[in-house]
């Protein structure tokens, strides 16, 4: 076996051990990630058109404070932008959609 592939194997075994060691946090984080993906999908569905946080919350059945948190995060990572103001609220839409 070449030294490069030996190293690869070592890393693979090491990662396996690490996964075993951090089993608890990895399981919890994986569950969270799945939930996050679903929520993001639901929110993004609403963001095809410019819309407000309370409107998304109502349509997607997600508490508004949570919607705001996701919208802020998606905005930070360049997936969502603020469009305009609608009363006391701002409207957002997905960057792909615009």
């Amino acid at each position, binding site marked *: 076996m070449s030294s490069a592939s030996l190293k690869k194997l070592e890393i693979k075994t*090491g*990662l396996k051990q*690490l*996964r075993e060691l*951090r089993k608890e*946090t*990895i399981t919890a*984080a*994986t569950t*969270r*990630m799945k939930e*996050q*993906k679903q929520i993001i999908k639901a929110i993004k569905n609403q963001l095809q058109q410019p819309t*407000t*946080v*309370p409107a998304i*919350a109502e349509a997607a059945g997600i508490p*508004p*404070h949570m*919607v*705001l*948190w*996701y*919208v*802020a*995060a998606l*905005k*930070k*990572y360049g997936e969502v932008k*603020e469009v305009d*103001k609608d009363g*006391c*609220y*701002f409207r957002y839409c997905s960057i792909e959609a615009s």
Partner: protein
Amino acid sequence: MRLEAKIEVDAVVIGGGIAGLQTALDLAEQDYLVVVVEKDASVGGKMIRLSKVFPTLDCASCITTPKMAAAAHHENISILTYGDLKSLDRSSDGRLEAVVEKKPRFVDEAKCIGCRQCEYDCPILVADENQGGFSARKAIHIPFSNAIPQVATLDVDHCILCGRCEKVCPTQAVDYFQQPQTIRIHAAAAVIATGFQMTSLHDKPQYGSGEITNVIDALQMERLLAPHGPYNRVLRPSDGMEPDSIAFVQCAGSRDRSMGVPYCSRVCCMYAIKQAMLLSGALPLADITIYYMDIRAFGKNYEQFFQNAQAMGIQFVKAKVASLAAAENGAVEVCYEDQVNGGVTRTSHDLVVLSLGKIAAWNPFGTCPVEVAEDGFIRSVSPRLAATLTSMEGVFAAGAAAGPKDIVDAIAEAGAAAMKAASYLSACHRPKQARSGVSINVKPQPSRAVAMG
């Protein structure tokens, strides 16, 4: 296997906030070698996380970054971030020894170029503590845009070891197997600049124990007001509404025996007034009320700042707020005794900001034999003539570690601590360590910047 490293310096500064950085700079200017130990992933402390500062309304980032950069680039200063102080005590040779555990970032600091590719590709969102929890970061992330050093940190509590960050990193900097490293710092003098933290929202049942979404603390308000904050504007966190009516509750945790904080936290009056002013700039139509016991605007130009706030139409109501409760449509009901008209009064606001108390961020018990006073802050043995002197010879304290303090007082005290440490070092007549001896096995950070210098 645990890695060990040793550093020999003239002085070690514990804490890389504004006080610690100023102390380090003043000592370095006397040609002493200094190492700064910071527990967070970036230096800058509380100040770098603020919006603007009173009474000048300077943007906090703009005036903190030069100090951070100056310290990071100074040839006499090494900065050790993401390090836990395990002990600080006198060793058998009479010098001080600080034992620091450098926590693993799981990213090689020398290799990371701060491109944030890993952060963009990471699939896990985590509440961003540097944005008051109002937005998200990823499990692997750079703390904030002007952090020093610009090095990613992997938060293993949220990592699923999916391997994406490692794959996408252009410099192979991600290292899932990184181990903590023990660093022994030998120094003749030490300066404690560990700063403060806020009392917890959760300790105050009459103010909702942190359960009312639109009751936030002052540091969270700083983020809402910061130009690069979570929403890039002021919105209330329950539903993203632009608030029409905002209230500040002063002494929500200070001057309050029930919170164990009988003392005055010294900065809350001024930051509340500042935030109120910034809010009335951002939301010109909003009603802003400050509920207070005494307005303590005692610093240079502070009283004039307070008078300006009154002239701007900010309402000051002398009252100790008794309780807060969630009301309809996300509003918060403030209940207080009206001292002018009499009687218990209830008023609704869209957003309520609590001016929580300042408590010491570091308890030396079990780590360092330095004495603390009843208030939990480092005790000064000569509060009139040399406030920075502690109960330990060669150990000095500066900034909020030695009691609540605003930025200017912390800066002055940092200079004073550096002066006392320099006097102590000159009295020690210790031969200076050779330059090359600054770091053994430990790269001074930020590594790239030092390499450039």
